[in-house]
């Protein structure tokens, strides 16, 4: 399957391993990611803070280019912030006529035009889950991640707000979008498919601090600490993410956080694409593994080794006659 690919600024350098691993697994999984020619920055959370119309136009150019180059209707972004911005502008242009008109008026200055809905903006994780599917993925697994306890970390922007969810879950769960905005499970299921032991990570959709590392470090450090603390509470060996910003904050600032709080967390943070690559038997170097600031080598060494017996994540329940039945949980789609 062909996809228009929008890597976004981070993946050109600070998150290059994400880009490398994505490309490394794409071919064997039958995905052809074709980069949008001459794409520009999505504006992150900054542009819209200063100038609304320009922020929409900035993203509009990328949508227009992708539509113009016509590789595919699907525009795939591996970066959650890019994904949100692309999707948001496409959505707002569709819903609010004045935004459609103003944005297209601006694009016209560059001889571009975008019809909302022309591109279907999707996150790379959604593409792997929905288009490749767990079955196909399972068949590609040659080196199951046995014995690895991973915390699936979704972050914010692939599940929220409502209109932003990927496909695959019931609208009621997400209030109209795709996946549950509070407790998604598709990354959990993906990692289980790879053979990893997945912890029921309560903070899976909590915030990594975003750009706060630059503006108010203390605020950011506390948010990062919460995640690291909770993940180690659940005795995870490493955290798996689908967002460059989450990876950067949790990985690169981990030592700062340890210094700041006098803690001693050592939790490598890898991208789900790297995990898939490993399970598919691709050489770690090809997946950019080793370029994380908090080294993962030692942890990855445990793959295949006997699984450490960890205490049950959920509060313990005595299995006797007195125990009350648990409510039926909604089936995982």
């Amino acid at each position, binding site marked *: 399957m062909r996809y228009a690919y929008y890597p976004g*600024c981070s993946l050109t350098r600070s998150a290059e391993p994400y880009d490398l691993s994505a490309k490394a697994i794409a071919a064997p999984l039958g995905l052809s990611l074709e980069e949008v020619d*001459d794409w520009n920055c999505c504006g992150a959370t900054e542009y819209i803070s200063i100038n609304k119309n320009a922020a929409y136009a900035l993203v509009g150019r990328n949508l227009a280019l992708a539509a113009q180059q016509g590789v595919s209707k699907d525009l795939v972004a591996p970066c959650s912030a890019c994904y949100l911005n692309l999707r948001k502008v496409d959505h707002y242009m569709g819903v609010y006529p004045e935004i459609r008109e103003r944005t297209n008026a601006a694009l016209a200055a560059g001889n*571009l035009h975008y019809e909302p809905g022309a591109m279907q903006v999707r996150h790379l994780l959604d593409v792997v889950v929905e288009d490749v599917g767990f079955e196909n993925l399972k068949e590609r697994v040659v080196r199951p991640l046995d014995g690895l306890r991973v915390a699936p970390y979704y972050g914010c*922007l692939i599940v929220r707000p409502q209109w932003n969810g990927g496909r695959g879950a019931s609208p009621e769960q997400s209030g109209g979008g795709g996946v549950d905005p509070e407790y998604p499970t598709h990354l959990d299921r993906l990692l289980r498919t790879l053979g990893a032991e997945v912890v029921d990570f309560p903070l899976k959709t909590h915030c990594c601090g975003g750009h706060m590392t630059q503006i108010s470090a203390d605020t950011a450090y506390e948010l990062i600490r919460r995640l690291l603390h909770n993940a180690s509470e659940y005795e995870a060996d490493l955290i798996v993410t689908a967002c460059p910003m989450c990876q950067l904050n949790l990985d690169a600032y981990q030592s700062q956080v340890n210094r700041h709080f006098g803690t001693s967390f050592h939790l490598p943070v890898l991208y789900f694409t790297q995990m898939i690559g490993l399970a598919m038997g691709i050489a770690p170097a090809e997946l950019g593994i080793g370029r994380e600031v908090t080294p993962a080598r030692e942890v990855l060494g445990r793959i295949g080794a006997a699984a450490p017996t960890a205490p049950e994540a959920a509060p313990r329940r005595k299995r006797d006659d007195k125990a009350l039945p648990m409510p039926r949980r909604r089936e995982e789609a």
Partner: protein
Amino acid sequence: MHGPSSDADFLAEVIATTPGAETLITCLQCGTCGGSCPSGPDMDHTPRHLFAMINAGLRDEVLRSNTPWYCVACYYCMARCPKDIPITDLMYSLKRMAVREKLYDDRDAPDWSTSFIGMVDSYGRSFEFGLATRYHLTHSPLKKVGVGPMALEMFSKDRMALRPHRIKGMNQLRAILDTAKAQEAV
């Protein structure tokens, strides 16, 4: 707390500049936003409180509030608001209004955003190193001492570019952005 600065049109103005914010007038004051906000403890007013202040027309106090600048854009408030108020977008609107009217006490956040935009406007891509230098050298470098090692790490792991990448269609992009900014001015 109401003062001479009470501005009856403020609410309408905030709604007008925020897509889908008509629902703001139906705010229940339930505090789901304030309760969900990861950086809530650092805000001088919770989002809920800010909305009550907007409703009361406390323009000056609202635009001087640090609340929007502490928004991490996690969209939890928006996903949970029982009245479908686009809270995150409202925070962006308040930032823009504050910047336009130079009403903020702490310059860090606005300047960070402005530096970021500077990069995008001149290269079409963001450029972490340039950004870091441009921002941190002009800006409370002391705060960043601790970050030094981290930056080094990033270099050593080859995760920070030293030269920016300028996109081919820079002129096209400029034309687009200039037109859009002109719209804003109107």
